[in-house]
């Protein structure tokens, strides 16, 4: 926690730590506290006063079919984003790891999408699948498939998933590739002598050894899908059609800013807060228990 050798005095360290504490207090703890406080009230119809309702907002939310639907949407969305971003990344990393030369060049090329903001990624994918001008949707149309994510739930979900997962492939690739390079060569060789061919080695030796990285990426990608994909959804579908792509974070935004339902939005914030807290604790516990061989 601290050095064996420490400096004396208490005023200086307090001054040093003050900027971070003050900024955290004003922009983090106060708003978080406000969210909890507001979640216990509903404003009257004229927005003049607040009425205390206890856990009423939460009870309402949890019985609200729209909110439940949004929960399910988020679960489906984040599962798909995690899968679509991790599986191809792992596959590419395994292939790149086999190469003796050129892996570095591929890595440089694959890094690009990571630098692209989710919102921009949304615009790019929207452009490709745009119902009027999109290249991909036009070719799909020629093949007899009528693409329309503006009306079709499944297609809308598919598009936001792919657009969200796209940049994460780069990110996951970097981690998988680094982890693969760190697998001791002699263990692979021992397995080869034991008679395991490439894919057998992959399933029985390499993949288990990658499990700390895989688990870490699993959590990080779920957190990403939960909280950082707002830009993708806002640019491509705005949560539609009929809320088919309204994930929880998008709902906080649309209920709070568009719908001006502050109590409900605050309660949703608190629920999300609990979700992030749980994910973080889960990650820490799990990493402690299982990660190092």
């Amino acid at each position, binding site marked *: 926690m601290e050095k*064996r050798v420490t400096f004396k005095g208490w005023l200086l360290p307090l001054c040093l730590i003050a900027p971070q504490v003050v900024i955290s207090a004003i922009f*983090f703890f106060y708003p978080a506290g406000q969210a909890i406080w507001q979640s216990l009230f509903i404003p009257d119809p004229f927005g003049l006063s607040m009425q205390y309702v206890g856990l009423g907002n939460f009870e309402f939310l949890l019985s609200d079919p729209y909110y439940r639907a949004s929960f399910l949407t988020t679960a489906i969305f984040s599962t798909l984003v995690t899968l679509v971003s991790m599986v191809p990344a792992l596959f590419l990393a395994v292939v790149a790891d086999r190469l003796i030369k050129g892996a570095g060049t591929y890595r440089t090329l694959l890094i690009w999408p*990571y630098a692209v903001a989710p919102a921009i990624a949304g615009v790019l994918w929207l452009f490709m699948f745009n119902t009027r001008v999109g290249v991909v949707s036009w070719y799909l149309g020629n093949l007899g498939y009528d693409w329309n994510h503006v009306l079709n739930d499944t297609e809308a979900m598919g598009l936001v998933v792919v657009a969200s997962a796209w940049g994460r492939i780069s990110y996951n690739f970097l981690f998988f590739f680094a982890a693969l390079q760190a697998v001791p060569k002699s263990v692979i060789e021992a397995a080869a002598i034991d008679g395991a061919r490439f894919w057998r080695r992959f399933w029985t030796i390499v993949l288990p050894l990658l499990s700390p990285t895989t688990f870490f990426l699993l959590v990080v990608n779920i957190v990403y899908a939960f909280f950082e994909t707002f830009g993708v959804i806002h640019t491509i579908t705005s949560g539609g059609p009929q809320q088919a792509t309204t994930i929880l974070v998008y709902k906080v935004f649309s209920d709070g800013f568009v719908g001006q339902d502050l109590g409900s939005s605050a309660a949703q914030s608190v629920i999300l807060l609990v979700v*992030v807290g749980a994910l973080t604790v889960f990650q820490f516990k799990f990493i402690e228990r299982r990660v190092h061989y």
Partner: protein
Amino acid sequence: MTEAVKDPPPGMVERRGAGLWVSHAIMMFGVLIVFFPIWLAFVASTVTQPEITNPPMPLWPGDQFLVNYGKALGSGVNVPVATMLVNSMIMAIGIAVGKIVISLLSAFAIVYFRFPGKMVFFWLIFLTLMLPVEVRIVPTYEVIAGFGMLNSYGGLILPLIASATATFLFRQFYMTVPDELAEAARVDGASPMRFFIDVLFPMSRTNIAALFVILFIYGWNQYLWPLLITTDPSMNTIVMGIKQMFPSGDDIADWPVIMATSILAMIPPVIVVISMQKLFVRGLVDSEK
């Protein structure tokens, strides 16, 4: 070198067959797929509007590069893209520098001092690790509005500085700095701040650079927050400004200009990532693990 050609491939004796070529083919295919959206955006930014609105659009760049980029940078749709680029740059650098400065200082206090309330502060900072701004947007918006900081750089930057990742990274790093250095500084009679400036800061340079890359991209790519607090188009950042360029209703979007803007929005973070690739990869692994 001709001798080397007839040698069997290095490494383990394996029946690879065409394996190596298949691997290269797979990687190239992967790169192509991953790259295609960016390529298409670039092509769209170099052709005319009619070429796009009469699908299929060409897959090879046209000759309207200067026209479209000139139009985007000079006039844009609501506001010149040049203005948005400046705003994004200020925001990204402000967030990166701000986070690094307050984290360097607070990590120094936590690692090198014993003072009342230290554990409380430590856990308070630790808690902020967990909560993205998206979760507390409404109340945070109210705080900024209360301070009259809507449509200001302060409002764009300050709330995003309140996160503990950087503090933890520096704390981790300080813990690996040998105790003897601080001992020597004390023996020499150097004040804590002297020690910080002359020893700790120079030693942290690589970490600072790596973190800067990550935080710059984090700041540059912000979307929801600028969307909420910049109602004045002249304060728009480029990433959020693109969405504002789409017309409401049935008007047709000015695709070449929008795509030119998308490309412009990608260039700074891509340059940072590619040019500092090694640092970036290291920074990622350090800050996330």
